[in-house]
């Protein structure tokens, strides 16, 4: 069994977890992060991509609104390249209440959320597909954010600051010691899900940043954290419908946001309370509701081609009186300056403000902090609060630096839709495209495989957008498997320099806008940060590209199934036709359902099968 020793152990590799690792490492803590799957596999990788201006919550959840606008300003500086500066419209449709817009504008003013009313006609000129019957339009600094890239950039910043990040490492046990009144959490047992090996990590402090899984993690410490899990269903269209974020100017509800993110528009969302964060069925009524509501913003949206449906789970938290224990949390919603208009009944009404649970104060358990609630937009603030609390528990005072420290890649400037096409054109890379829909070149794929943990093709999808376009892996699954297999066969390990996926994924061979590794090394400072001790530097199977591609047939089938579960709920019309062409390729031409069976399963094979979005006909 391997052992590691660290000061701070972070559980969860989503936006919050990577943010915590970054913050902690910047403050000079030896930091290790474990994530049971790939980074951003949870809610972070399943959200619509909206960088909130806060306006959505100005009336309903003012605390969250204030957090959002402040973080919005910061993230534009620290994560510039992860953000497309789309701007956002709040539009009043004929179905919306008359008095909401004025109250909305007033609340924006009160909370310092920049809000300008613009003539509906000029909004329609900018976004011609918008419902022509909208009466009023407010423009706000909403934006679109790439949560995959942002987590990778944050993770890279954390690594540069000395943190160790271990994806495909699942928490199995938390080590508790001491009796009542002196209970302490001293470390954790971690399972390397690829190799099957166990790892003991001794830590001074464990920060639970497991998002929707926070309750499960807390339970391992014998602490009750009751999460309100709100399932949100989202749909992606085949191409963008608007270039601006569109919100209905009303109390937040279902299907009232359109986010232009990369090549698609995401329609979001529903809010259904669920018991568990996994195995989320997508019901036909949820899809229909999204489309019906979407039609009110962009008439005809329900007839456009939908590429995919997916569900994420909001990790909402509302501190309640726990039996036998006084509520002692610092949950900011409890001491709000801005009372919400409604009390939480269901997940839609639960606050989006962050929740920090210091379990020493709350439960008498030393060495354990839970940070949850919040929005993607506020992940940095959540990390700051968590590490502030950690400093307090550890009895040190080190100021937070994340708000003024740009992550690697910001020099690329804001994301813009055309950048991949532009680079493919400039360097004539058309014949090197592996995923034609999303303009992923072979060298992008190779880079991602060689320098990043790749256990499944789905990991590559998150790194480079492989298979995320109209054909949903129809042409590129085979190509990607072939390339991975070739890489294993030989010339893979000639890894030069420190490539990372913290930059905008660039088809160009020469990252024109990005600095050399040396420049990065000097830009990102602290050489003196202590690193965690132990044999962590020995590469685990999860970060070994050789292991990652040893089972090409499994990779192929897993990815086909992973794509299938997202398209099955929306297969009709042209996307059904597309899927039939994909069937032709994988059945008729490749005969992929009669390939020799690779031994074993990937850590995710059963997940792809079980997390199916449609139910069996025979069930």
């Amino acid at each position, binding site marked *: 069994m391997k052992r590691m020793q660290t000061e701070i152990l972070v559980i969860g590799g989503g936006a919050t977890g990577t943010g915590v690792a970054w913050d902690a490492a910047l403050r000079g803590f030896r930091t290790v992060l474990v994530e049971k799957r790939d980074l951003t596999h949870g809610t972070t990788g399943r959200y619509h991509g909206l960088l909130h201006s806060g306006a959505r919550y100005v009336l309903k959840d003012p605390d969250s609104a204030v957090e959002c606008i402040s973080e919005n300003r910061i993230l534009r500086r620290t994560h510039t390249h992860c953000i497309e500066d789309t701007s956002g419209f709040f539009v009043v449709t004929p179905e919306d209440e008359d008095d909401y817009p004025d109250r909305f504008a007033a609340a924006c003013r009160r909370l310092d959320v920049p809000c300008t009313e613009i003539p509906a006609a000029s909004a329609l000129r900018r976004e011609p597909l918008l419902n022509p019957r909208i009466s009023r339009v407010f423009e706000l600094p909403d934006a679109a954010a790439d949560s995959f890239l942002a987590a990778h950039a944050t993770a890279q910043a954390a690594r540069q600051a000395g943190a160790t990040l271990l994806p495909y490492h699942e928490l199995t046990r938390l080590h508790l010691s001491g009796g009542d009144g002196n209970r302490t959490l001293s470390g954790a047992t971690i399972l390397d899900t690829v190799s099957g090996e166990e790892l003991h990590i001794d830590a001074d402090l464990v920060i639970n940043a497991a998002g929707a899984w926070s309750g499960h993690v807390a339970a391992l410490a014998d602490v009750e954290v009751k999460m309100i899990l709100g399932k949100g269903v989202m749909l992606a269209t085949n191409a963008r419908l608007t270039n601006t974020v569109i919100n209905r100017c009303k109390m937040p509800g279902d299907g009232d946001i359109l986010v232009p993110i990369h090549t698609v528009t995401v329609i979001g969302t529903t809010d259904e309370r669920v018991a568990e964060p996994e195995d989320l069925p997508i019901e*036909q009524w949820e899809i229909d509701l999204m*489309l019906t509501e979407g039609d009110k913003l962009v008439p005809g949206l*329900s007839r456009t081609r939908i590429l995919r449906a997916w569900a994420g789970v909001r990790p909402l938290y509302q501190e309640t009186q726990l039996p036998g224990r006084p509520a002692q949390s610092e949950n900011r919603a409890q001491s709000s300056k801005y009372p919400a208009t409604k009390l939480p009944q269901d997940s839609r009404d639960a606050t989006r403000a962050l929740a920090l649970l210091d379990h020493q104060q709350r439960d008498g358990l030393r060495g354990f902090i839970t940070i949850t609630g919040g929005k993607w937009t506020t992940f940095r603030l959540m990390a700051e609060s968590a590490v502030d609390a950690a400093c307090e528990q550890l009895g040190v005072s080190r100021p937070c630096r994340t708000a003024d420290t740009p992550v690697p890649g910001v020099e690329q400037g804001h994301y813009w839709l055309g950048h991949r096409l532009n680079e493919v054109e400039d360097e*004539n890379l*058309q*014949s*090197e*495209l*592996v995923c034609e829909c999303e303009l992923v070149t*072979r060298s992008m794929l190779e880079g991602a495989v060689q320098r990043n943990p790749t256990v499944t093709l789905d990991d590559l999808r998150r790194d480079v957008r492989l298979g995320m376009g109209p054909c949903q892996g129809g*042409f590129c699954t*085979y*190509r990607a*498997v*072939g*390339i991975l*297999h*070739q890489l294993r*066969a030989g010339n893979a390990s000639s890894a030069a320099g420190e490539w990372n996926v913290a930059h905008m994924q660039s088809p160009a061979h020469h990252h024109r806008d990005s600095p050399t590794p040396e420049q990065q090394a000097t830009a990102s400072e602290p050489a003196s940060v202590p690193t965690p001790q132990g044999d962590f530097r020995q590469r685990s199977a999860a970060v070994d590209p050789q292991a990652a591609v040893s089972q*090409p*047939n499994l990779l*192929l*089938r897993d990815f*086909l*199934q992973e*794509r*299938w*579960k997202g398209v*099955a709920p929306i*297969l*009709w*019309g042209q996307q*059904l*036709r597309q899927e*039939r*062409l994909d*069937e*032709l*390729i*994988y*059945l*008729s*031409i*490749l*005969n*992929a*359902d*009669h*390939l*020799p069976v690779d031994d074993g399963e990937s850590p995710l094979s059963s997940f792809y*099968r079980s997390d*199916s979005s*449609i*139910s*069996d*006909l025979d069930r």
Partner: protein
Amino acid sequence: MLDLLVIGAGLTGLFAAYTAARAGLHVRVIAHGAGATHWHAGTIDLLGYVENRDEAVANWTQALPELPPAHPYRLLGVDAIATALDAFQQFTVAAALPYVRPGTIMSLPAPSASEDESSQTRGQVEQIDNDNLGRNCQLISPVGAPRPVYLAPTAQQAGNLEDDRPLVIVGLEGMPEFYPALSAENLQKQGFYARTATLNLSPLLRRRDISPLQMARTLDKLDAQAQFTEMVADMAAPGERVGLPALLGMDAHTRLLTQLQEAVVDRGRDSAQHSDRRGTVLSVFEIPTLPPSVPGLRLDAALRIQLAGLGVRVEIGMEVCGFHATGRRIQWIETETGSRPLRHTARNYLLATGGILGGGIYADRCGRVKETVFDLPLTAPHARSHWLRPLFLDKRGHPIFQAGVSVNHHFRPLDQSGAPVYDNLWAAGSILAHTDPIRERSREGIAIATGYAAANGVIKSQ
């Protein structure tokens, strides 16, 4: 006045048009776009798998009873299918693109007239004898899985997995469409000897575009053929079969194949035990690639050339937008144009528009499944919740893809009562119900057999 208007320009429509035109009928083909022939492997897959059985069908004549009673093959029976395939083989010989059952051909085909004269005499296609009738063979898929196939063009013959000669799978540097190592590894897992090799074609290509299609066009040129032949022959070891991605020329395909074959066998001759094989055993073969399929394009071109020779016009870009029927007769159909609808009048109509992939059937969000030309009654799952299964590769297939037109054994579309909807309408190919041609690996077999039967129905009705 046309005797027959065929709607759809895939294998079904073109072969049916050919059949009818050969019988002297005045035929025209219209289609919204080019046909599905461009996507498929260019082999004739007759019946590879039947539901609930994992192993491939060894002999389709014996597997027919396992198909549902309304399956198009059950409507036809073994003899009718065999007759249609025979007619198809005769067509391929006439078109100088012979298709035979792998294992039955022992010599090179005759190149077309403009090509090498000296080899003409060696061309010979053997009819399928009764012992072999219905026997599938297995060819190599791009990932090295066995593809159950009934007939294949000469260029794919040597990929037969019944053959025990060692294989060399050859890739081309930089080509994103073919991965020889992956293919070879899977062949090895199944017990075949396979090694890999890679050719660098950049000197003869002079293009950035190295898709199989562009390569095939380049390899139509004489000098490129000579250089390429040299490279392949240098690489092949004696006694080996050489598998290449399907790009061995388009128009001058036969000439290149002959050259390659002779060069590879010549090299092999240096080691004495293979000297008797010259001209007798095919040693070079193509492995199909992702769409667009070069072998499929060759088959399409062969059909179009034969049709043009028979005076059949194939008009592409015609999307049907309406039709007019009186009683049980279709009077005309209309296609959309830049301005007013264009009327097409014929005595008979053959619907060969394909299934969901071809565009003959459209399934919408509300669960409605529609036939797109005549709005014919369809057999289809009754609600969207019954369309799909949770696993993409479920061997039973997804029920929505069996949706289609029910026909009688004359291939007349039927209404709910079981009576023909129109007296002058036939339907054939992937639009037919009670079959999932992609899942069954029966697409070309269904296309040829039902297209031939429907065309003959039209001929007899004249």
